[in-house]
């Protein structure tokens, strides 16, 4: 059995813990590929994967932690969510780096937002809402509030911890997967503002989830020692498919590779775990970091990046897609 692999390279220089990672621009080739990282000190670094240097630093969150980064499909625009209760929209085109718009948030939690880009211009944004258990849906770029998703009075799922907006091919109606503080995952029908299905898959808060819409299967990680794999059937009902026990408790992020072959988890135990997504067979335990790993991200070409509290970003090339 081969020894555990080493990272392909390591990015240093964020000078504080890395809390968000995002790949962009992979479609135009490696030289245009960028890795965006958000740090505890509120800076967003843009890394070139060719020179492996930071080519720009965006400072828009007043020193507060950046917890979510997302580029829009229709152009070089970046969304960054910070704990200063602001969601900034950056224009990165042609080397610019200026905030063009910002949304004021009303939740101080750690819940990352999610977007669903439908048309060329209009897209939908889900962010935690004003009430502690609410989720707010906004129409962008007009910033008009579409609706607020509030669980039924007797449900008490606690705060939303992670969000995932989806629109499946079968149904045009947008759905929202939300992981809650009580360990449950709920599927919301956004247009009807009601919960289609809800399953309790963890006993601890859900820290991250990802969904494979082609296989209608999702995975969630929580503060406990297990990953949960669940599926969505034709009737839009969630079902737990199984749990996968881990050595150490605490998963802060889970990501499925775009080709839906690998699953990566970011662990509080300093390790990134890689699984075969379909069989959930463990493939590798990447023990490079010396502190908790906060986020993982996959590039379109299969590159894996992991950001950690130890201020380093490790980039790995595992099982390259053919």
């Amino acid at each position, binding site marked *: *059995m*081969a*020894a*555990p*692999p080493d990272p392909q390279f390591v990015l240093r220089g964020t000078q504080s813990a890395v809390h968000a990672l995002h790949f962009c621009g992979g479609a135009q080739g490696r030289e245009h590929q960028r890795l965006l990282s958000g740090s505890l000190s509120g800076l967003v670094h843009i890394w070139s994967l060719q020179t492996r240097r930071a080519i720009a630093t965006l400072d828009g969150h007043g020193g507060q932690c950046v917890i979510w980064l997302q580029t829009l499909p229709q152009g070089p625009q970046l969304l960054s969510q910070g704990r200063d209760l602001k969601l900034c929209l950056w224009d990165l085109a042609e080397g610019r780096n200026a905030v063009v718009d910002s949304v004021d948030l009303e939740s101080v939690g750690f819940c990352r937002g999610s977007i669903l880009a439908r048309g060329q211009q209009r897209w939908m944004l889900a962010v935690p809402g004003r009430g502690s258990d609410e989720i707010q849906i906004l129409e962008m770029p007009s910033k008009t509030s579409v609706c607020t998703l509030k669980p039924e009075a007797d449900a008490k799922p606690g705060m939303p911890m992670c969000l995932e907006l989806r629109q499946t091919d079968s149904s045009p109606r947008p759905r929202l997967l939300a992981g809650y503080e009580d360990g449950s995952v709920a599927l919301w029908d956004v247009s009807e503002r009601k919960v289609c299905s809800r399953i309790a898959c963890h006993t601890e808060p859900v820290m991250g989830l990802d969904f494979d819409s082609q296989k209608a299967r999702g995975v969630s990680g929580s503060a406990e020692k297990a990953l949960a794999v669940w599926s969505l059937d034709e009737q839009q009902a969630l079902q737990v498919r199984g749990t996968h026990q881990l*050595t*150490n408790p605490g998963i802060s992020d889970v990501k499925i590779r775009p080709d839906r*072959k*690998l699953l990566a988890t970011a662990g509080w*135990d*300093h*390790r990134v775990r890689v699984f*075969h997504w*379909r*069989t959930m*067979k*463990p*493939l*590798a*335990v990447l*023990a490079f970091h010396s502190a908790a790993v906060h986020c993982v991200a996959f590039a379109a070409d299969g590159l894996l990046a992991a950001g950690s509290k130890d201020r380093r970003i490790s980039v790995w090339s595992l*099982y390259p897609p053919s």
Partner: protein
Amino acid sequence: MDPVLSSVRLTVREAVHTLSSSEDGGCIFSTLEFLKRYLGETENPALPAEQEEFARLHFSALLRCLVSKLSPDWLGLLPDGQLEELWASFFLEGPADQAFLVLMEALEDTPGPSFRLMKMARLLARFLKAGRMAAVMEGQCRQQAELAFPLLQEALLVRVVGLPDRLANCLQHENLAEFFPQRYYPLLGEEAVRVLQAVVDSLRGGLDCSVSFVSQVVGKACVYGRQKEILGVLVPRLTALTRGSCLWQRVCWRLVECVPDRAMEAVLTGLVETAPGPHTLSRLLGNLVLKSKKARFVMTQKLLFLQYRHSTPALQSLLGYLAVDSQRRPLLVQALKELMETWGSSSAIRHAPLDQQRYVSRAVLICLAHLADAELQDSRDELLASLMAGVKCRLDSSLPAVRRLGMIVAEVASARIHPEGPPLKFQYEEDELSCELLALAAPQPAADSPSEAGSPVTPDAAETPDKQTEEGGVLQVRPQGSDSELDSDDEFVPYDMSGDQELKSGKAPMYVRDCVEALTTSEDWERWEAALRALEGLVFRNPAATREVSVELAQVLLLLEEKTSVAGFEGLRQRALVAVTATAPAPVAEYLTSQFYAVNYSLRQRMDILDVLALAAQELSRPGRLGSTSPCGSPGPTCPPSCARAPTWRAVVDERIRRKTRRFSQGPPRKGLAGSPNEFNAVAGYFFFPLIQGFDRPLVTFDLLGDDQLVLGRLAHTLGALMYLAVNTTVAVSMGKALLEFVWALRFHGDAYVRRGLLSAVSSVLLSVPAERLLEDLPDELLEARAWLADVAEKDPDDDCRMLAVKALLLLEKLRDKLLPLTPP
């Protein structure tokens, strides 16, 4: 005078005359042909009365005459070896006993290697090959007891059994393969079976016969130590023959009964070892133990108590034999009682070698397996008393092997003797011995097959569950395997994930003082454990900080109790304590040695102190210690995995360098080990002298010369180790002197473990103290030690003690050799 008889005498006299004087081949031939009439088996044999007369009186004389004529010229009188054939036929066809005796006599009288000697040796080989030995023995069996001539029988017996020795003496280098003991005694066995067959046949025909000569032959062969050869042939044949026939069994019993007393032990030992099982043994021996006192003594005393070399199957056969028949079972009960008495006797435990104790234990377990509960109940009190005494003595012993033996036997025996009581259960690890003993305690299968003796039942029983689990494992694996076959489109081979261990929380203290605090006051067990784990590394990294709190830290560690279940607690504590002692040797050693003789410590803690002192001394005296003070270099019992992995990459790199480098010449390695002073030098006294001073002052709770002999043994070993590590130091001489005095005071200690410690201490004195100083300062002590060592090497019951004494004696010899060149001639 009877005319018939006188005519025979005349004929023979004439013939002898012709033979001795005539040079005419034809004449000699016809004379011999004529004489052959008397042997029968020709066309016109002589009258039976004449034949008998010839055989009784004249045959030997004729044979002697024939032997005397044997020479190349004489045999060449007629062509084609006709004469030789005729000559030989007299020996091969005449009465076998006389022919054999004459042949043997002639062989022994004929000097040196010569034609005649070789001819006769070949004739004897032919004689054996023709099966005439059976005729010799059969002749003796057929004789009526009153007619037998004891002197002749004795002569015959000595020659039959001693043939290989005698022939080897006569022929020396020319000896024939037929006369080698390896070939001869199996042949003798075969012949004995043929004789017995003849005896059985004639008994069936109503004729009286005696087997006593065969018994004597077998007995004498066994006394000569040829049990394996002769019984190896006899026993399987007799086993087969006695299976269906009562007559054969009777003959066989008679055969063993007639063995003379002085050969009984040899025969019985051989039979017990050769017989494939108790039932066979019972068929061969019958109720011999009830009839013969000697046999009973051999079977129930000598083989059980006075010898311990026999294999377990032999022991099983022996005790099984006693158990098979109801008349013999009282003997088995009696044997068990005596065995238990021996097993429980404290003097036997102290003085008997370990092998004998194992042998007795095996015998006890086999007896228990054979006896029924009712039989055990009758003598239950007696057995229990012996058992309890034995268990107590054994558990007190300082030798682990003796303790284990006590535990195993006590568990099995108490379950049998006292089944209604709560089961006794000791914690011991399973090993070969315990498995073997436990298998013995299981009831034996009824019938004994030939294969049973060869292979004990244990391995089979042990293997079966293994196979099952293997199959189970395969079954478990299969679904995954088939799953991965489906993945053939994306074959992702997993990486090694063995490093995926549970993460310990990062609460480890960063400073030595924090560790002390965490260990003493912390109620947070994770922090407590993390402090314990971190301590060794911290101590090595911060020697200055450690020195400030060294004694306090040593105290904390010494008194530390395992409050939660921490894996490897003992090792962690010991390594930390060793690290502290090595960092601040003088104060900590002073503290530890003073605590060794203080009140209110457990034996465990006292032994920990000794271990720590020895390990710290080893660490201090390690060469090159100053250069690389790595935390994992300490001689702890367990090493962290990172330390174990390091050499492999080093080996890989070295191998790569070696492969890629071309060397034109290979010189000696450039860099030797850098010399550095022995750090133990300055502090050896702190370790050694406080320890050796107080051993004879008993405390209320701690008496080294009394019950706490285990600690005394450890103390002796530790002092020896300290002495050894103090090699090349200036205090070595005075340490050696003190240690020899210590050894002298305790040299007759009753505990083997203590004696081992003393012997190893003597060896380390001889190794560490410079030879010149030994002779100058300690000549008397050395002489006394030498006498004591010689005594131990010869007489000590413990194997290890004897071995250690021999090693120490060798060291003394070497010392003398080293000094001899120095002394002026």
